[in-house]
Each structure stands twice: as structure tokens, then as C-alpha cells.
């Protein structure tokens, strides 16, 4: 099911963004721009990256800043979804509070602050 592959892809990419920020001691926004800058122009890879960052970047920034895991981010962004009656699929250890509460917190975090404008993106 391609949705499940997209879920794996999302968790991997968000993990890489999180670790880039950690390794370079930078913001999540800078980490996403760095990742896109590494991609070749061929096959629209770089522009696709910038497009995706423009669309979901603000949410990723807010959620990672709140120490949410890549699993939470991707479930919030709906790239991962728990099928009713099926187990919750996650790569990282689950947060201490109940999963539902975690997702509700994520929704609150995203709802609050204004969407960021990326300076270098323009």
C-alpha cells in the first residue's frame, strides 16, 4: 500500500531534518533549507523539496520545537495513519502520555502560532 511507504518516507525524512538540526546545532527551518540545498536539480528534486517544505515546513518546525517525535509529526501531517483495529505503527519510543492526547496537543500547537515566512525561500 503506497500510503504505508509514504509513512516510512515521512518518518525517515523528518528524522533526517531533526538530526541535521541537532548535528549543526541549527534551527529546524535552517535544517530543511540545508537538506533541500543538498538535492540535485535533476528530476525536479530540489524544487520538489522546497515545495514540500513550503507546504508542511511550518508545522514540522512547530512540532519538532515542541520535542515531538517524527512519528507524531507524520501522524499529525496524515502521512501516517492508524487504521482502526490495527496497531499503532511507530519507529521511536512512544511518548509517555496517551497517544490520543499527544495528537491533540500537536493539533493545539499547530493551531496557535502564525505561519512562518521563510526569508531565503522567496
Amino acid at each position: 500500500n503506497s500510503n504505508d511507504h509514504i509513512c516510512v518516507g515521512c518518518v525517515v525524512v523528518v528524522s533526517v531534518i531533526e538530526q541535521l538540526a541537532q548535528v549543526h546545532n541549527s534551527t529546524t527551518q535552517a535544517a530543511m533549507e540545508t537538506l533541500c540545498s543538498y538535492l540535485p536539480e535533476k528530476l525536479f528534486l530540489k524544487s520538489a523539496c522546497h515545495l514540500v517544505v513550503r507546504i508542511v515546513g511550518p508545522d514540522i518546525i512547530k512540532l519538532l520545537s515542541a520535542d515531538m517525535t517524527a512519528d507524531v509529526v507524520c501522524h499529525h501531517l496524515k502521512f501516517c495513519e492508524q487504521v482502526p483495529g490495527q496497531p499503532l505503527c511507530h519507529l521511536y519510543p512512544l511518548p509517555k502520555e496517551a497517544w490520543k492526547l499527544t495528537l491533540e496537543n500537536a493539533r493545539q500547537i499547530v493551531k496557535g502560532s502564525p505561519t512562518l515566512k521563510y526569508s531565503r525561500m522567496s
Partner: protein
Amino acid sequence: SDICSLPFLAKICQEIKSAIEHSVPFKDVDSDKHSVFPTLRGYHWRGRDCNDSDDMVYPGRRPDNWDAHQDSNCNGIWGVDPKDGIPYEKKFCEGSQPRGIILLGDSAGAHFHFPPEWITASQMSLKSFFNLPTALTNELNWPQLSGATGFLNSTSGIKEKSIYLRLRKRNLCNHRDYQNISKNGASSQNLERFIESLSRNALLDQPAIVIYAMIGNDVCGRKTDPVPEMTTPEKFYSKVMETLEFLNSHLPDGSHVILYGLPNGTFLWDYLHDKYHPLGQLNKDVTYDQFYSFLSCLQVTPCHGWMSSNQTLRALTSERAKQLSDTLKKIATSKKFKNFNLFYVDFDFQEIVKEWQKRGRQPWELFEPVDGFHPNEVALLLLADVFWNKVQRQWPDVLGKENPFNPQIEQVFGDQGGH
């Protein structure tokens, strides 16, 4: 969202889709199944065409009029020796019994490889993704570096070479005669969907060595309970026989077919489960056990049976793999075919583990780090070496003789046009 819905891209998308579905080269002007383009099933997968506007010119064919006027088989040997007027192909290749290598395989045979540098933040740089376009247009496979048909120098630095390069070294008349007919997810049950992409004309072409290596997907399911979807020995027998009948009607007389057994894959869990996955190396927070669970939960795991903490399931998977290997053995010892001899070779992973440990190395270094499943380039080359030595020892005719004219070929034609 679907870029292919744009009118001006619809046609090229259709062509690319067809090439991938049928495993034939996307760019093949003369439709002879050989291409001058590397990826999209081009010459990374099968010998490069040396004249893409003539469908009677392609790697592996018997020379046309001893290639006095043109290189009809793309092995770089053609023309007439001015000293005696004898065509070079006749002088250097006649009687040397040239032959091609054809692999019928799965993602392991195609050398599925997801570079760890793509997901390792601590090593990431501008250079990390330079090969991403090539990999994407080869379905994340690297047949040009595979153990059966690889023609590029190994990136791992070990001395072992691919089966194709060893056949070429033995007889330079075999130059460019390779075909990697493999596909991610391939098994005995779905090979029929792309075996037609095999390019061999029983009358016009040289004999071939065909390796049948469906080494996992017949027992590797994605579902929570993979056992019901495992191929039964009866179904396996039936499909393998269908494939052999197809080969008998397509291969030139004097060919050889080697059935490659399935591994006992329980070593996978043993060697990897408690090691850190590349995503978990920075913060020591993701092991292969967690990674396997994540993939299995989503039902996108390449092989639930062996990538599982359930020891019983791992044993069941290996038991079925052994039954299927025994089926291949039975076929090889009981069936005869007009155009080829039939052999069976065990997939003995432990043999290469021992060799690798003899070099002071660790078994877990033999696997693709990102998917934690496929044999990596080192493993594929070590397996090729073991395979070559076994065949050479047991059935020396299969690999052909050393061509005494190799030095002259090299002297006159250099690298024979390369790959």
C-alpha cells in the same frame, strides 16, 4: 499531485511506465532490447547497444559475416587484419565458444541499495545525493555493480569481481554480453510478467549461462502472518518448469541454466537485531529490531518471515525456503532439456560469512544498512566468487575456456569500446 496528468508529460510518462513494467529499455530506438542510455533499464541492466538504429546489431549475437565490415555483436572486435585479410572476429573468436550471462532475479540480483549517506545527518553534504537521480531511474537498484552482471569497478574495494567480468576476462569475445533480468519483488510466481524482456534468439545468438535466482520473495511476505502467502513447493515446481520451458524455446543450443537455491535467512535477525540502524546511530535510539517492527506494522517489510523477533516464524520461513531449494534440486537432477544443461547450486551464505570473518570483519557488514535485509555489494561479490569457484570445480564446461587470443584482442582493440 500526479505530474503525469499534465498533457505534455503524458506520453513520456506512459513510455517510462511501460519500460519499468515490462523491464525493457526506455530508450531503444531499434527495439532490439539494448540501449545507449544507462538507466531506465538501459545499459546498466544489459549490454550497451553499439548501433541503436539497427535491430540486427546488439550484444550477444553471432557475428554477421565475421564482423568484417561492422561490429554486429558490439564486442568491439571487427574489421579485417590487413596482414592476411582474415576478419579479426574470425581470427580471435572462432572456436573460443563465446557466451553471455543472463540473470533472472529479484531485488538482491538487481542489487537493491539505499545509500546510508542519504539518511545520515552527521555525514551529509552537497555530494551525498549526487547519485539520487540515477538510483531513482533504476528503481533504487544498482545492477551495474551487482554480483552477476556488474561491469563497473566495485566501490567496496574488495578484489572479487562479478560473474560477467570474470567471463569477460576469460574470453574477451564475451565483452558486453550480459543481461540483468531482475525486478524488485520478483518471485517464481510473477517472473512470467517480465521474462519476455530477456533478449536471446536461438538461431542468431551465442549460447548463454542463465542463472535463476529467486532467492526470497517466494517465502518473504509482508502480511502479519506471512505463512499462507508463501509459495508452496507444488506451485514453485510448476512455475519453475514453465520458466525452463520458456528458456528451452529461446536459448541457443549449448546454453546452461543454473538454479540457485534459497538461503536459510535466520542469520539476518541473529546478526542485526540489536545493532543500531543508521537513523538510530546519532542518538542510540533505533535498533534494527525496532526498524523491523515498524516496517512489519505498516506491512511494508521486504520479508516479515526473517525480519521478525518471532523465532518460530523465522524457523518456519527457513523451513519453507529449504523445501523450495529441494524442489530446485529435484528439478535439476531429474529434468533434461534440448538446448541447455541444467544445474543446481546452493545459496550458502555461511560460506561467505566465514570468508569475511577470516578477513577480520563482522557478519553484519554484509547487509544493506538502510533496509537491514539485502546482501550488500561486498556480499554479492563474495557470493559471485563462491558461485564461480563451485561451477568451475564441478562443471568447468559451463564457464568456457580461456581464449588464447585475449592478449591480441587487447593489443588491437584496447578496451573494446568499454561499457
